[in-house]
């Protein structure tokens, strides 16, 4: 047993993996740190530091256009990610645990949104929504975002579900008669990391989107990236950095909070 322990610990600590992870994270954070630093720029430049100041943060709070756009982006992402995760979970359960005829076709449909270039989705959706008479606005944004978020939520959930031991569920079947209890008490908690991965992925993807949002936003529902891109003509100011830094802060808070909640449950 002692032998097993050291070996198992060995493979958890493969050489160079920790270093790679650290470097990867450093690489991901370099632009972020840069952004945060320049959000405190006293000057107007986004690349030359002229002293430090809070001015851009006050500008953000005073600037209705930017703040409104940022809020729209976040709300949209939360709703779309949540809807997509629920639908994707249901789909994953069906695909992995049950017998589905024409599974290949279902798999292809579920992953279809991944293949389509964003610009094509954007134009196609624009034409579709207007001709159906649904109009453009927050509603059409939610529909479009949810649709393209589904595969992003689906993949991590499926990966997790496939790696799960079905023996656990048959054991649960002995304990709980009703499938719903089996699901919520056994499957769901074990599936949780996959669900969180899926939700996060969907959330990020929605937040990031630019082209589709640009096409489908209507009056009053401009999203943040669309607003920033249109600022390009008149020049990007560190206000953009300030908004981005605020979003980093917000995300950190959300993640810490959910981490604390999870800790309390265990």
């Amino acid at each position: 047993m002692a032998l097993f322990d050291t070996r198992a610990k060995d493979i958890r600590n493969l050489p160079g993996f920790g270093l790679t992870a650290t470097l990867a994270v450093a690489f991901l954070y370099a632009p972020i740190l840069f952004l945060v630093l320049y959000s405190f720029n006293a000057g107007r430049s986004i690349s030359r530091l002229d002293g430090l100041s809070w001015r851009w943060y006050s500008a953000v709070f005073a600037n209705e256009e930017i703040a409104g756009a940022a809020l729209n982006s976040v709300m949209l992402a939360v709703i779309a990610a949540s809807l997509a995760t629920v639908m994707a979970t249901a789909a994953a359960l069906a695909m992995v645990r049950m017998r589905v005829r024409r599974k290949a076709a279902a798999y292809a449909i579920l992953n279809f949104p991944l293949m389509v270039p964003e610009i094509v989705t954007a134009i196609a959706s624009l034409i579709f929504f207007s001709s159906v008479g649904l109009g453009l606005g927050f509603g059409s944004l939610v529909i479009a975002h949810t649709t393209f978020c589904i595969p992003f939520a689906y993949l991590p959930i499926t990966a997790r579900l496939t790696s799960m031991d079905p023996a656990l569920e048959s054991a649960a079947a002995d304990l709980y008669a009703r499938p719903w209890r089996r699901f919520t008490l056994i499957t769901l908690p074990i599936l949780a990391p996959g669900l969180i991965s899926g939700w996060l992925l969907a959330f990020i993807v929605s937040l990031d989107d630019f082209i589709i949002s640009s096409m489908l936003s209507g009056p009053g529902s401009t999203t943040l990236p669309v607003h920033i891109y249109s600022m390009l003509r008149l020049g990007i100011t560190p206000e953009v950095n300030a908004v981005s830094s605020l979003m980093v802060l917000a995300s950190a808070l959300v993640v810490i909070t959910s981490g604390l909640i999870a800790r309390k449950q265990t």
Partner: protein
Amino acid sequence: MKLHRLLLAPSLGTILIFMALPIAITTLYSVLTPAQYGGVIWEPSAEAYVRLLFERDIFDDTLVFNTDYLQVLGRSVLQAGLATVLCLIIGLPTAWFIATRPAGQKSLWLMLVTVPYWVNLLVRTIALLLILRDEGPINGALQSIGLTDGPLPLAYNNFAIGLGLVSSFLPFMILPLYAAIERFDFSLLEAAYDLHANRRKAFFAVVLPILRPGLIAGGLLVFIPGIGSYLAPDILGGGKTLMLGNLIGMQFQGSRNWPFGAALSTILMAVTLVALFIIARRAAREEA
């Protein structure tokens, strides 16, 4: 109503109605005639597809083989492929590392990996550019230490585009892999050790095959959006080289040729549809 149909209905329905249908319309557009200021005229025309491979000589209307657009496609595939490989090389060890940490650290690392992505891609891409370019901090540091004389061309080229793609898509590789590794049964490794001498061999022979669904998931999520990437070549490449996403975008903007843009997209989707079906068939067989 069979349970599995009920479960699948919402996602399949949403995608079919709100994506497949609009796309079908787009494919329809690819065989229509471009209208003067953008949009289409409802008259059939195969001109868009002809244009992919051939250029029509202005004077005598003959067709000349034209590689312009094939070059764009080839370049996009190469860039995306390279980015996928890099994401795999960096992402797999990272995901493995995170998944094998004790519980508290695990969440910390996950948080670290995802927090940057709350910043919009456009802004992150611009920030990356600002760091890489001649007047940026990297070149500034290199020059002040004395390692280089002049600035290194780190930006406005394919190198920067590649870096941007990796930076954009890394979590799409890490997160699915993490979810798969998280529940990995390490007792399987005992069996592995009986067969293989060291942990590296055990990893490649035993671990990797089990992780294959996660690897495929991650690979797809990087490669496919990568081909159609718009912002990275636009901003980090200095707008000097066209990739497929930019080419398609152009057709709906200045070039005002919607059918051609639709044709480009249709071809791209056809190719990936075929690949997807092949993978789907194997995945369905494995899950059964």
